[in-house]
């Protein structure tokens, strides 16, 4: 009792209208960005009559799992088991993310920390290509993929997505904050360049790595384009493709589609939540000026 009174008094002393508005404003904005997520989750559990209710309701009244049943039914009628799509998606996305992080960080590290001829030129070209709108290049990319004989292989879903200028740029911005003197001292102690990169520079660039992991995972996990363009075998296509066929089922499949959207978003959120604490925490460390 006494403790509570004390708490209230302490709260009163610290309370100002400025803080009140800060918190209120933040909560409103966050609530606003969270709306689509909440809507998505609630729709996934809506029975079919609530999905088509007019006027529509935001929250679900009678939650049910029937949409997931519909999803299984919708998917079972397809030639390829649903799990196959999930595995395809997981495999190509994880490969893409791992390889992207590896080659991007190596490239960015070399451009920023190794003094070799032409590094400035590379960086300038990267900056310029950031501004280009990619859709027009899609057909030439297809030509390149097909000439390399990668059509109908998993490589077609992985390799073209690896060298993204945006991630290179992000990575380079972070790596340039690592003081040269630390790397220099590692080299003087006899570390090879690769060792310096792996054991000294990379731990200090964790924030950049986590950021690139989150972005590249999200982008590739959600990308249906590749498996439509490069893949002709149904069994090698990915989850977003399967999803688009489900939602193409029209009104009858609306419930199944909502469930599929919910299930497909989950991994993205999980990856983000897993990485986010690192993103921000390590940012504080990686930013230390030498």
């Amino acid at each position, binding site marked *: 009792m006494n403790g509570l009174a004390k708490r209230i008094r302490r709260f009163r002393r610290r309370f100002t209208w400025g803080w009140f508005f800060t918190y209120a404003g*933040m909560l409103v*904005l*966050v609530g606003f*960005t969270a*709306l*689509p997520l909440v*809507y998505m989750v609630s729709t996934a559990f809506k029975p079919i009559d609530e*999905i088509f209710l*007019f006027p*529509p309701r935001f929250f679900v009244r009678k939650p049910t799992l029937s949409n997931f049943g519909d999803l299984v039914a919708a998917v079972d009628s397809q030639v390829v088991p649903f799990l196959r799509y999930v595995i395809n998606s997981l495999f190509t996305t994880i490969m893409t993310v791992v390889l992207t992080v*590896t080659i*991007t960080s190596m*490239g960015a*590290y*070399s451009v920023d920390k190794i*003094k*070799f*001829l032409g590094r400035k030129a*590379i960086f300038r070209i990267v900056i310029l*290509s950031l*501004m*280009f*709108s990619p859709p*027009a*290049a899609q*057909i*030439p990319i297809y*030509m*390149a*993929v097909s000439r*390399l004989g990668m059509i109908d292989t998993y490589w077609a879903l992985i*390799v073209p997505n*690896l*060298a993204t*200028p945006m991630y290179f740029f992000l990575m380079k911005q972070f790596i*340039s*904050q690592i*003081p040269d003197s630390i790397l220099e001292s590692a080299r003087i102690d006899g570390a090879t*360049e690769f060792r310096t990169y792996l054991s000294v520079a990379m731990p200090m660039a964790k*924030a950049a790595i986590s950021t690139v992991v989150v*972005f590249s995972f*999200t*982008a590739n996990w959600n990308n249906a384009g590749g498996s439509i363009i490069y893949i002709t075998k149904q069994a090698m296509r990915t989850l977003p493709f399967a999803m688009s066929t489900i*939602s193409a089922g029209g*009104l009858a499949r609306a419930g199944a*589609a909502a469930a*599929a*959207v919910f299930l*497909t*978003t989950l991994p*993205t959120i999980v990856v*983000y939540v897993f990485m*986010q*604490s690192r*993103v*921000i925490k390590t940012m*504080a460390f990686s*930013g*230390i*000026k030498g």
Partner: protein
Amino acid sequence: MRKKRFLTMERRDNYKGYLFAAPWVAGFLLFFLYPLSQSFLLSFSQIRDISIFQFAFQGLNNYRNAFLQDVNFVPLLMGSIRNTLLNTPIVVVFSLFIAILLNRNLRLKGLYRMGFLLPVLLGSGAVMQNLRGNAAVVDFTSGMQGASSGIESADLTGIGLTQQLTMMLGPVAAGYLQTVLNQVSAILWMSGIQIILFLGALQTIPVAYYEAALCDGASEWEKFWKITLPLSMPVVLLVTIYTIIDYFTHMDNSVMVYIIQVSFADFNLAYGSALSWIYFLFVSLFVAAAFLLMRRHVFYMGDK
């Protein structure tokens, strides 16, 4: 090991550099630069036979058509430029503001951060399209949204939430609310990464400066203008450029939508490439302008 002794320091650095950069550069050349150069060639030509990728040189015809014949392109381009010019400053200021708030000792920090990054996670993918699709299914009776908001804001609010509010509140109140919501969401949806970049910058500012300012009796306002802002100017520049590019090359941008439509729905690849290159030129003009305008205010702290 033996061989290395004959290499000069400089040469060794060169080899190391090439070795490290090689995988990325190879991927970049093969799947970015080469397609880009192809599309550049394509923009000067006309497709003869798409199945064997044969095209005929046509000179500047495509470029001429874009400005003189195409009734859609120039208005769309102007609209896109206006939109970017209006929104970029708002996004930069807004995200700096939010980042400063997030950098303080607030309760539930993680929740806010998650909240502001959500649009980045959800907005880029099939999920958003699907939500939009669902909204379209739900909303088969009202044409209100398309009528009252421009192409882009309608796309950004997407999810069909505004229509739902319209159902609950009635058209008049909802009309105002919708305009406000469109604006707010358009900005929120575009500023996730910017907030993260600013947060990173703010955390690199040494606390000692603020303590010194505190001893000298500076107010919060003065601290912001004399310490926070000048020291985060490099990131302000970075964020400005990022925002400009993001606005111009966003998949919902009306010019991008038009280019995709021309190239793939109408299958006029050559013309689509020409449009892309014109667009690219405009975007780089704006980025260069932003860079030149802000360069005098940017200074770098320390050794970099």
